[in-house]
């Protein structure tokens, strides 16, 4: 009889602790934009209350640690996942994300990179309940508190530069088109907006398409820019920087063989008095809408 009571008390104590922890970790209604430290790659997490947007998954499973430390333990649902373009350092981490989290919407290019990892991603996405949406310039996704506007690629750019597999007519299937250009050209560029705060998220765009992006007329003054292509000089241009005129520039970069971030880009940012934050120096970079910056 006595042990029975002991177990009942232990059970009740555990139950109470779970409730307390769940309340303690209940998220605030406030924007949190996190550039996850995933090494050489991109994984950007935007949180407002219980809503999460994840832009890219990085080159490895480190993105899971980032999600674990910034989401409450009981929330296993990510509202929107965007894959800017199908390169390894952007999609690899998404495989485990789709295995472990419930994803509502998955926005990704139709481009087929042909790599083995991408076939695995296609399979897990296919086996999940996520709705696949091809990107369309001007599309807005989210709610009144936090939303994403898709700036690029435009319909015409995709039509001119992608060859679609004619057998598959469903735009909701991944990997239906090919191209002779590098996948970077098709990076999905978005503007994240919450209250007065605006962030320009640029994937791996290259100088050659900067004009096309500016020509959409959707780029204006922002607070935050995710520097394209890990700070490669084959990325950010002065024109785009002038147009976006950010206060903070975040570079998602790790140990790499190409010397990212390039000196030219760091100098350019310094010239325009933009504050530089690098994941290889600071770890996860957390920015909130009051622009307070925490190192974690």
């Amino acid at each position, binding site marked *: 009889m006595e042990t029975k009571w002991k177990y009942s008390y232990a059970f009740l104590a555990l139950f109470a602790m779970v409730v307390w922890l769940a309340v303690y970790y209940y998220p605030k209604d406030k924007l949190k934009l996190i550039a996850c430290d995933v090494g050489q790659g991109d994984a950007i997490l935007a949180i407002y209350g219980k809503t999460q947007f994840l832009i890219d998954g990085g080159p490895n499973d480190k993105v899971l*640690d980032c999600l674990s430390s910034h989401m409450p333990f009981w929330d296993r649902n990510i509202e929107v996942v965007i894959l800017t373009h199908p390169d390894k350092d952007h999609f690899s981490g998404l495989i485990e994300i789709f295995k472990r989290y419930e994803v509502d919407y998955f926005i990704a290019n139709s481009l087929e990179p042909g790599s083995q990892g991408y076939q695995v991603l296609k399979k897990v996405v296919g086996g999940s309940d996520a709705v696949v949406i091809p990107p369309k310039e001007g599309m807005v996704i989210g709610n009144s508190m936090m939303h994403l506007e898709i700036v690029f690629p435009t319909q015409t750019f995709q039509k001119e530069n992608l060859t679609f597999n004619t057998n598959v007519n469903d735009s909701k299937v991944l990997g239906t088109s090919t191209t002779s250009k590098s996948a970077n050209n098709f990076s999905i560029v978005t503007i994240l907006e919450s209250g007065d705060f605006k962030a320009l998220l640029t994937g791996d765009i290259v100088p050659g398409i900067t004009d096309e992006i500016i020509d959409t007329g959707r780029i204006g003054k922002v607070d935050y820019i995710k520097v394209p292509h890990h700070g490669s000089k084959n990325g950010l241009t002065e024109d785009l920087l002038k147009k976006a005129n950010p206060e903070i520039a975040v570079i998602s970069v790790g140990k790499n063989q190409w010397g990212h971030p390039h000196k030219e880009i760091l100098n350019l940012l310094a010239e325009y008095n933009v504050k530089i934050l690098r994941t290889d120096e600071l770890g996860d970079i957390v920015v909130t809408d009051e622009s307070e910056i925490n190192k974690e």
Partner: protein
Amino acid sequence: MFTKIWKRENIFWLVIILLVLFRYFSSLPSYKTGQKLRITSKVLVEPIQYDDSQYIKLVGIRFYLPKYPEVNYGDNVIVEGIIEDGKLKNPVLINLEENTGIIYKVRKKLVLFYHRALPEPHASLVSGLVLGSKANIPTEFWDQLISTGTVHVVVASGMNVTLVAGFLLTMTILILPRQKAVILALVGIWIYALLSGFDAPIIRAAIMGSLAFSAQALGRVNLAWRALFLSALLMLLVNPSWITDLGFILSFVATASLMLFEAKIRKLVYFVPAIFREGLSTSLAAQIGVTPILLLTFGRYSFISPFVNALVLWTVAPITVIGMTAGIVSIITMPIGKLILFLTYPLTSWFIWIVNLF
């Protein structure tokens, strides 16, 4: 009469030791460096996943394969490569056949359930404790477990088998007569051993547990030492290469040290709060035998290990029992399984927090 029985038993041990020796020398591997090899085998040691590759051990030969396609515990594979110092160079995966056996399916399903229900590293900790699954443990957490000497709880450990065996017996004895309960518990132990990856420490614990239970059922007691030696010899008879397996050696040495020293040490540490006492006395006792081996093989040893173990070991039993119950319930209804699993969260948080602290 007494001497006759004693003698008969001696002959039994002599025969079994001779058999083991014969098996050992007749099965020494004969691969030479530079030899081309094609291995067709079932994967009996869980592969470890890295960023770009996976580490696989087949019939005592180690090699790395590309990360995809993913090889799982229990799958049938054909691999080709060239032998170099006991490793396979340039290995190529010729064929991969997924194991669709019910046990392997259940294991996969349970691991997936833990990963879908909890964030990391909580999910890995639970699936490590319940199923000995170490494939997906985040690198950082793995390093912390090693440096604090607590990694033994998440890799296939005999402790889990003993725990599950005890739990099964207590449960079945409530509804069945003792002898039938023991038989059911025995079946349970071996299903669990298969479920948690057939590693040496697990088999050791399963054999010892089976011997102990049968002895109890047959009314014979105090067989612990004989059970220990018998299980070691039986295992070597089946797989002589285990003699060099670190997990095998550590498992037996640790168990022997426990049997020799645990009771005495527990008396010495009477002043420690009850909740941590057993954890401290068992880990201190095990350390006596294990420390020299660890020092010899790794050249380093974590001296805080007994204290970290004392602080975390009490959580192992409740996490395992809750995790397993949640897993079984999740097969029937996922949402309720998830709710039950949340009960482990305060315990895993404590475990992770302590390991982080040191």
